């Protein structure tokens, strides 16, 4: 099993990094031929940075749209961030001081994350409009994330696993030095689902994460009268 998970995580890491890298390079290379910021928009690059920061950290547009949705969204994503920080202890030795400091928050965040997911999932059943637009993959994505959260919390509160050995396994992976993974069904489920998440990331709607930063309606400055904006393929038209 240790070898299986080692290979799985190497494969998942390669697919995640390469897949996402290819997508991002594709986004970077595809031009935005026209100025289309949703106005009122910042008129300077600094203002655009602030707008993107507010969108990424506070979900500003979502806040304008729907408070329930915003609350579930921010709860899930904020909690996920804390949980990820908490998990950094499995990949660092010695553990960075701020990761140690965040441990207790990360623990409660596990529950907050599930609560956020439950809210988001509930909307897919209870709100007629959201039910209409939901596809099977929308439900499966939530199931996957909930499965990761539940199996993780299960190891903390129901059936412990040997986390020292888990850490040795992952530190070993990072040095290409295979260490044994504890034999624990909950751990297997947890790791399997995490690997699956990494693998499908570049091929799914999880691309909303990088996508936000490449959204022309958000990342363009409102300065079309002051600066001439020309895509390479559009410039070709002027030469003909």
């Amino acid at each position, binding site marked *: 099993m240790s070898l299986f998970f080692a290979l799985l995580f190497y494969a998942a890491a390669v697919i995640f990094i390469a897949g996402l890298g290819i*997508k991002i390079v*594709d*986004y970077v290379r*595809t*031009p*935005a*031929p*026209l*100025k*289309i910021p*949703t*106005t*009122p*928009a910042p*008129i300077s690059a600094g203002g655009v940075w602030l707008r993107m920061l507010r*969108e990424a950290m506070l979900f500003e*547009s*979502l806040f*304008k*749209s*729907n408070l329930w*949705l915003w609350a579930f*969204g921010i709860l899930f994503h904020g909690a996920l961030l804390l949980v990820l920080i908490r998990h950094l202890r499995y990949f660092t030795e010695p553990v960075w001081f701020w990761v140690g400091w965040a441990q207790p928050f990360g623990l409660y965040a596990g529950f907050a994350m599930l609560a956020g997911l439950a809210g*988001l999932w509930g*909307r897919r059943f209870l709100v*007629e*409009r*959201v039910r*209409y*637009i939901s*596809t099977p*993959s*929308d439900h*499966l994505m939530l199931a996957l994330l909930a499965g990761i959260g539940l199996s993780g919390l299960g190891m903390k509160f129901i059936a412990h696993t040997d986390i020292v050995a888990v850490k040795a396994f992952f530190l070993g992976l990072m040095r290409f030095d295979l260490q044994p993974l504890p034999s624990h069904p909950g751990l297997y489920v947890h790791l399997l689902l995490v690997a699956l998440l990494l693998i*499908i990331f570049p*091929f*799914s*709607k999880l*691309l*909303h994460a990088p*996508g*936000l930063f*490449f*959204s*022309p*309606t*958000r990342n363009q400055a*409102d300065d*079309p*009268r*002051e*600066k*001439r*904006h*020309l*895509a390479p393929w*559009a*410039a070709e*038209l*002027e030469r003909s």
Partner: protein
Amino acid sequence: MAAAEFTTPELGDFSAIPPLAPDAMSGSKPYPASGKINEAIGFPAELVPDWEQKAVARLGELLKQYRSLKVYLDACVHCGACTDKCHYFLGTGDPKNMPVARQDLLRSVYRRHFTPAGKLFPQLVGARDLTREALEDWYKYYNQCSECRRCSVFCPYGIDTAEITMAGREILDAVGYGQKYSNEIIGKVHKIGNNLGLPGPALADTLQGVEEDVKEDTGADVRFPLDVKGAEVLLITPSADFFAEPHIDSLIGYGKVFHAAGISWTLSSKASEAGNFGLFIGNYEQLRKIALRVREAALELGVKRIVVGECGHAWRVAYSFWNTLTGIGAGADDPFAVQLQRQLDPRYKQPAHICEVTWDLIQRGALRFDKEANDQRVITFHDSCNVARASRMGDAPGGQFEIPRNIIKAVANKYVEMDPGTTREATFCCGGGGGLLTDELLELRVKGAMPRMAALKQVAEQDGVNFMATICAICKAQFTKVLPYYKFDRGMVGGVHQLVSAAIRIGSND
């Protein structure tokens, strides 16, 4: 055909979410363009036999040209933030008028043909082939979007359904299935110089008539010049301003402002149209070709400033795209654009909106008004979607909201705001924008106007509002048509410069 019988919605809360009514609007579609119309602007005459391959191929090309399209087709998570934001959904309840569902009509085909997940597990991710039925859905529902961008304000990733609709229409045009209204108008611009097909001599006649009317009304010799070389300002305005009601009253307003301020100006018979329907059909070449007429007119007439009249999408094209398309603007270092930018006076914004010009003159004390002339009116302001969410006026973000309001308050005494959920960046489309201002879509237009009509009714009842000012030719035409369906007087809508025209002092300014 489709415009036979329908019930005008009851007016309640503008944001009340209707229950889903699947296929409620599946009978609504515009007339397809004839072969002659299509060929005149370089599209296939009719639906090509291999439309499926052609459509997918065109989608593939657009994905390489437009980052917006590529990112937006990938990024949507189906969160539902946009689902209750579209005026056409609020007015019809048809779920395919929810922005995300409208996008999914194209996204499902994108997934099927361009993503591994959609190729391997189509059912799982909602991918589908481009069937004849799917193509028909594109034609129906991409012609039920006014490209107003209201949904993009509320999307956490800024997904703009207008970008998707434009891509959808561009693909439909590429396979010979474009809509008549927009394509016919584009043909007219190329042939005659404006959307209405008003030739130069007729335009000259009309303008002379306007001069005579103003002389009769005011006793002043306000000029409406055409093709005057060496004029300082070239005014580009929607051709509806030349004869439609209430548009023409704003044209008279522009003329009076220039007259009172002593600015020499001219219209152009070559570029007698601010509107640019190339935007509506999402075709960059058409957008550029139509805009180039303005560049040519500016170079020929040797003007120092280019000013744009009251027209929503035209201002979007002028403000956001002219610099890109034609070099009207500043900050260029390529010979094509520099040629024109050397000619234009750098002390002024290029292009400028007529409201920017008027407000600047008011601030400098160059214009004087008798505000009482508008006292019979209790005025509110309808933000036009393209001005509100796709452009700016003045130096600060949001100037597009403040400047028209400032002008109204400078020329009239009674001004009232509508519900803040329906103004500024959250404004509702009039229901007729984006290439839908055609009679066979009347049901859609009436129902799509519902949220705006509900907000108007509120201030009409509470504050006695009897005039809704706006700065868009399409808004004016659309409201004139649909106001009576909601038991309002059609004369309630008019331009900001119509109010300016009523109050401005001319002749005795010295």
